[in-house]
């Protein structure tokens, strides 16, 4: 179920990317898309009644039911990359705002 929801979130993000021309709104849409994608990936590793994949004194057998840690590691990396790209996009938007005085892509002239 959560996978359908996350795909719906991705579609919301893509809709925003297609319909908006404001740079900040585009960056927000991109982030919504990425969050949907990240939830989708985490949901792949979900196991019902699974434990956190950490060996502790209480759970120290590999025979126990753990959730898959790999998608979580993947999402962690994807989040970091996403933050980097958002920062770069915001820096570009700021620079464009300084030259053109607007965040609307359609109102910029000369490029």
């Amino acid at each position, binding site marked *: 179920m959560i996978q359908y929801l996350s795909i719906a979130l991705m579609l919301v993000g893509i809709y925003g990317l297609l319909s908006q021309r404001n740079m900040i709104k585009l960056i927000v849409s991109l982030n919504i898309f990425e969050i949907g994608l990240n939830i989708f*990936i985490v949901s792949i590793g979900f196991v019902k009644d699974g434990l956190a994949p950490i060996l502790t004194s209480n759970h120290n057998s590999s025979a126990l039911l753990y959730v898959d840690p790999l998608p979580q590691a*993947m999402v962690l990396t994807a989040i970091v*990359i996403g933050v980097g790209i958002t920062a770069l996009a915001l820096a570009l938007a700021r620079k464009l705002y300084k030259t053109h005085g607007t965040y609307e892509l359609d109102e910029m002239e000369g*490029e």
Partner: protein
Amino acid sequence: MNPALLIAAPLLAAFIAVIFKKIDKVVLGVVAVGNIAYSIVMAVLFTGATQIAIGGFAPPFGISLVLDSYSLIGILLVNVAFGLILLMGTKLVGRYGIVLAVSLAALNGIVLTGDLFNLFVFIEVAAISAYIMTTMNKQLKHTFNYLILGTLASGLLLFGIAVLYNMFGSLNIIDIASKLAISGVSAGAMVLPIVFIFAGLSVEAKLIPFGGWVRGVLKKSNSLVGPLLVTGYAAAILLVFGRLTSTIFIMSDGLKIALTVVAVATLVLAEFTAFSKKNLREVLLFSSIAQSGLVVALFLNGLTVAAILVLVNNVVSKLVLFALSAKIADDTGTDKISELKGVFTKYRVLGVGFTIAAMSLIGLPMFFGFVAKAQAVMSLFESGNLWLPAVILLVSVIEGIYIIRILTTLWNSGKEGQVPSKDAQKEYKLNGFVKVSIVALVIGVLIVAAGILPITNIKEFLSSDFLSFITRSMGGV
């Protein structure tokens, strides 16, 4: 010989350059030369395909690098292209030394990696460096568009990879290929991941309609960024494409035709657009979009050797053409073909290098391009495909017309068909063109040499080792 050094050394260089900002160009130069030398040594000492585990985790559990003749060609191509571009555009490096070092690491990683998620990370790192590098062109609005499109595409790529992980429980390309062979997953089930991965790679590979960013970002690019995006980046991404199509893309006939149509449409539309353009760099970038389409079409039809030959030809000749065009545009202030009449009558060596590269791009006999295109067309005929060779030959004619039109304008300052008078000669002034001329000439000699020598050796080297590696690893990793 550990190929991981090719990735680690540029990364280390980038960190050193952050700390010691004053020596960043030196560090970058050393690491670029070192990478070329190291990849040549690896090619010479190459004994057989291997998978190198990273961090002590045996594949498929850990990340692995794949070193076979296919990735060797990739690293040679990427590193040599990067080194030459850096040599020709040293002055333009400026404050971008760190970004260039990171991009070199990422490009090597893209070619070498055997792990899908690692591939995503390297593509993202390469893309982020590309976004930053394109700000050099002062076309920030186009850079912003490129960033949005590129990030969306890598999101789609990651989605495709996640679906594949869900299906096979593995991220290792060879492991997935062997599981595919054993499990007998139907081609229908593979449609979803293949389509998403294809779309994700298509933005960087510049296929129409995903390559909408190219024109804005590259039409005013300088002799550093333009050649790098057109050659090094395109080569790395297209090689990944080939690696995936030959291992894990199990396609139904319908899907294969659909994707081939996208690639062929790119080829035809981009060649027609290039035909109609009046600026040197715009013509060249549409021509490279077309070549990407051709390479992808060949890969999709299973013609790995032909695709690699066409790719190598495109990288080598575009490297010269784009670097020279950007150089001329930087110094004369224009790259409008009609305003550059007779520029080569003064700079003959430059002109000879440009002409050889252009001839090779069209695929005239005596040049390497002929070998590549002949191989592509012949192997298509052998596989019983008749419409694709027809399209390739047709667009080659279009390509020939516009390239020769450019060459006659650039060599002849007067009217067509007449010897130009002395007065018609316009004065051009290029600064520091010696280095560029030498590079262009050396590449020109290599192109001619490779066009005359028989290619059977290259062909055997490529097909025997690369294919045997895949079939052998199918049996179990």
